[in-house]
């Protein structure tokens, strides 16, 4: 099993190569991805690119955590209500 290093909300962590950003967020102990219009935490829901609940900012670009594979050096930030 190969490990890769990335950061989640500024904190360095190591994850297994090949996993999605959604799985990495969940493994970090805090699976929420964004804050909703009424300020509630939301996490990946449909798991398949449909609901858009899992949108996060990866290296400055908004992407879906459930359809993005982790890459070494990625900077993952949870997103606010955008």
């Amino acid at each position: 099993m190969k490990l890769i290093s990335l950061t989640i909300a500024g904190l360095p962590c190591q994850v297994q190569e090949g996993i999605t950003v959604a799985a990495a967020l969940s493994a970090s102990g805090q699976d929420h991805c964004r804050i909703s219009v009424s300020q509630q935490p939301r996490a990946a829901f449909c798991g398949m690119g449909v609901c858009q609940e899992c949108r996060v900012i990866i290296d400055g670009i908004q992407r879906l955590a459930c359809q993005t594979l982790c890459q070494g050096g990625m900077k993952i930030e949870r997103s606010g209500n955008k």
Partner: protein
Amino acid sequence: MNNVRCEVLIIGAGPAGMAAALAASESQKHIVMLDDNPRPGGQIWRDGPAAVLPTLAQFYRQAITALDNVTLLSGTKVVAQSGPQQLLYENDKGCGTIDYQRLILCCGARELLLPFPGWTLPGVTGAGGLQAQIKNGLSLQGERVVIAGSGPLLLAVADSVTQAGGKVTLLAEQASVTSLARFASGLWHWPEKVRQSLRLMNRHYRANSYVLEAQGQQRLTAVRVQQGGKVRTIDCSRLACGFGLVANIELAMLMGCRIENAAIAVDDMQQTSITNLYAAGECTGVGGSELALAEGAIAGYAASGNIASARALLEKRSKWQRFAAAVSQTFVLNPRLKTLGTADTFLCRCEDVSLGQISRHKGWTAAKLNSRCGMGACQGKICATAARYLLDWPLPQPRVPLTPVRLETLVNLTPQPPKDIN
């Protein structure tokens, strides 16, 4: 911009798309297959660090990789129709158009996700959604998981949960014992399915059961379920809910295809109401991977002009159509599920619009104008599908782009504005 041209374009690399590509490739035509997931396989053959692909899936993947007239574009979404016989796509490298002569839609299906109190809490996911995450590397070591909803997919999900180290504490199936028994007694028609169900049977499976509420403050801690005549509260860290599947028809609606029974209408050769446009797999009606494979191959042959080979598969397709009919009869949803949500349960998760806010309106237009329901990031793919079931509102006509895109992609949809006004 990276513009592409091909003879046959296939949208979706699930079982239907892969079978279509393989069949069409025999004609030596140039084929492009495009899919939004990072790896091919669709919903059922989702590859990942925690997935072991069945032999059949490996066969299709290897066969397609070996073909030099098939190009697979993974991690790529179709976002709009940008001209006659031309679609606009976006991926992380940029965007572009694809010109095609024949198009085969193999867009598959998604889960029907219904609102109930607490369904927006982290820890609550779609049933197939949890399975997808497990295959993509989510570990459930030490977690207690409740699975609820309807249909054979729940059993497959329970199997994935166990393999990921989780403990399934309840598998609540809303269908009645009588309809499940009727289904089981007819299963011998499809011996493959008997073997599969025996392997997947779970001792926590309960009929006549459904979720009432997900509880927790910032995250799920317990669920309340109706189990036969009793109400139980069960501690858990995950609730995976799926109420059956619904066809992905947005792209087809955008292109003007005739829709029938909430799926793309096709003829014997899988052709839609539009010339040169075919559709196969679950976007033409939910029916499982075997049916998707048969339909995909028929569409691939038909779209590449090999009608004889397409005809040879009609009997196989009928066999799995009969299975699909038996499944849909068994797992008809109990109307009680329409009343799970309360007035303050959100229907629209993107814009946080409650059921109370929307049910006073007559239809989509009024609801959208007054509440922004259905106008958020998912473009109504979750709430409009739920409202179709809850309120009998037909899906609104999809808007372009089909999914949120970058500005650079959007610009390619509209004519360029003049550079200087004065």
